[in-house]
């Protein structure tokens, strides 16, 4: 069976800027808000650009939150990196977003039943973590957020997590917020504190961070799911462009992922 995916024009309701070129878009998209699962994403572009948008391809973005009780809206937390995200940053209320989604498989939440679920996050990876944390918290599972950045300004999108009333450990390299150090230092402490069989890990963020997290978790036999970011042309499994290497075979990040099991994922090889 094909999963439900819609293509729609979502009216922009709000564009709230954060420090460090991050902004949070709120758009009207009930079909997505009502069906999205933690870890899923959308393909997005500025609407109304005619037949040849610029840039041409949509950009993959995690669904950050579903902010209203009626589930008619979604938010996207986006960092300006290049032309695609820059154009998205110019959206204002009254404009619209072309969306395709929800896409991807998302996280497997069953793995962490009755374990301590640690969500290790860096950068815009935070956007993939909120629905996950919320779902785990709602299911009554124990869940903690470990969120690291270079400085306080990097810790965008914390507010909604605070409302979940889950333990949050923040780290900054320069000590301007939370503990001074790396998020993986905080993780190490947790790993020393609890027996491996009580833990379940999720990690979203820069590849280098996720690789370190994986290399800490996998040897201890701790289940660890990573959510990877990789260039995508279509987002729904037809261009075959978003391949990642896993033990055994190539897999598509957009349909098999973006969540992969850390023990199966093969990190990049480059001399």
């Amino acid at each position, binding site marked *: 069976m094909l999963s439900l995916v819609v*293509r729609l024009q979502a009216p922009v309701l709000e564009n709230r800027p954060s420090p460090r070129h991050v902004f949070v878009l709120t758009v009207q998209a009930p079909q997505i808000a009502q069906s999205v699962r933690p870890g899923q994403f959308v393909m997005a572009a500025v609407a109304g650009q005619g*037949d040849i948008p610029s840039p*041409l391809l949509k950009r993959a973005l995690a669904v950050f939150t579903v902010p209203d009780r009626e589930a008619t809206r979604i938010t996207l937390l986006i960092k300006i990196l290049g032309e695609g995200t820059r154009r998205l940053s110019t959206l204002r209320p009254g404009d619209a977003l*072309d969306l395709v989604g929800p896409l991807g498989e998302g996280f497997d939440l069953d793995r962490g039943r009755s374990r301590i679920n640690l969500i290790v996050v860096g950068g815009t990876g935070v956007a993939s973590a909120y629905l996950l944390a919320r779902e785990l918290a709602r299911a009554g599972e124990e869940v903690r957020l470990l969120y690291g950045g270079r400085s306080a300004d990097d810790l965008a999108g914390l507010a909604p997590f605070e409302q979940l009333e889950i333990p949050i450990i923040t780290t900054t390299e320069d000590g301007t917020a939370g503990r001074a150090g790396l998020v993986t230092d905080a993780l190490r402490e947790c790993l020393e504190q609890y027996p491996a069989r009580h833990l379940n890990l999720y990690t979203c963020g820069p590849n280098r961070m996720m690789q370190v997290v994986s290399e800490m978790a996998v040897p201890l036999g701790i289940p660890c799911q990573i959510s990877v970011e990789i260039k995508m042309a279509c987002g729904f499994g037809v261009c075959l462009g978003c391949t990642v290497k896993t033990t055994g075979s*190539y897999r598509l990040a957009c349909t098999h992922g973006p969540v992969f099991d850390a023990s199966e994922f093969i990190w990049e090889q480059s001399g």
Partner: protein
Amino acid sequence: MDHDIDLSVEFGGLRFKNPVLTASGTFGYGIEFTRFFDISELGGFCTKGLSLEPMAGNAPGRIFETPAGMLNAIGLENVGVDAFIRDKLPPLEPYDCHVVANILGKSTEEFIRIVEKLDPQPKVSAYELNISCPNIKQGGMQFGHDPKLTFQVVDAVRGATSRPVWVKLSPNVTDITVFARACEEAGADAVTLVNTFVGMAIDVYRRRPMLSNGTGGLSGPAIRPLAVRLVYQVAQAVSIPVVGIGGISCARDALEFLIAGASAVQVGTANFVDPLTGPKVVEGLRDHCREQGIPAVRELIGSLKPIAEGEFVYY
């Protein structure tokens, strides 16, 4: 919807309800798009390139976006012809549009064996021989850059099936008409063009190719003017039908190809940009014909009036 305009085209023994197909490698195995629209609205679609055995494709770093285009070096990842027949073809049964099997072999024998496997499948309407993929070492441009090999492989496949045989041409040659003529002589029912143009992008920080394959194939609106010209050139040079491909995003683009001489068109990269591009082009063609008082779209095919000596136009 009012169907006063006749959008149908007929060529190479097949009738298409409209001249809009979707291009190999950009439409999956067709079924993936049924969640966006009823693919029976299309004249047809071309499958991802099918090989005798499943192919894993190239390592990651397969795509890179460029101005109004994209580079790809997928390396022809596909499920193989057997899995296609077993898993991909049956779900297409309910849809009323032509399925064109895009096929690729490392040798003439492989092409023939693939055709032999597909020939008993009634849901397949035609074969499109991919002799022009820039992203694999064997069996791609090796055939498509040598007119003799082109003739051989087309001739052999022609002898092996009574189904329409289309041949997909590479644009990366000095004179594409040489290859089109080789196909015509070998008995091809149509040539389809263009496949992608070889290109490259470089990560300027790491000083490495963006694609693991080094080079990739450029597609999308960027290449449209190049493709229109090649289609025009080929349509002038051969009398078999031409199917036009390259950067089509809307009806206006499709019209360029039809007027240049294409009997049908294929939408490629635009399927990623907007999965509804196919039906949008169909509707746009209908609107254009209606507005311009053209009763049947086929009247447009090859209707380009060259500029005569002394003529000119201000734009």
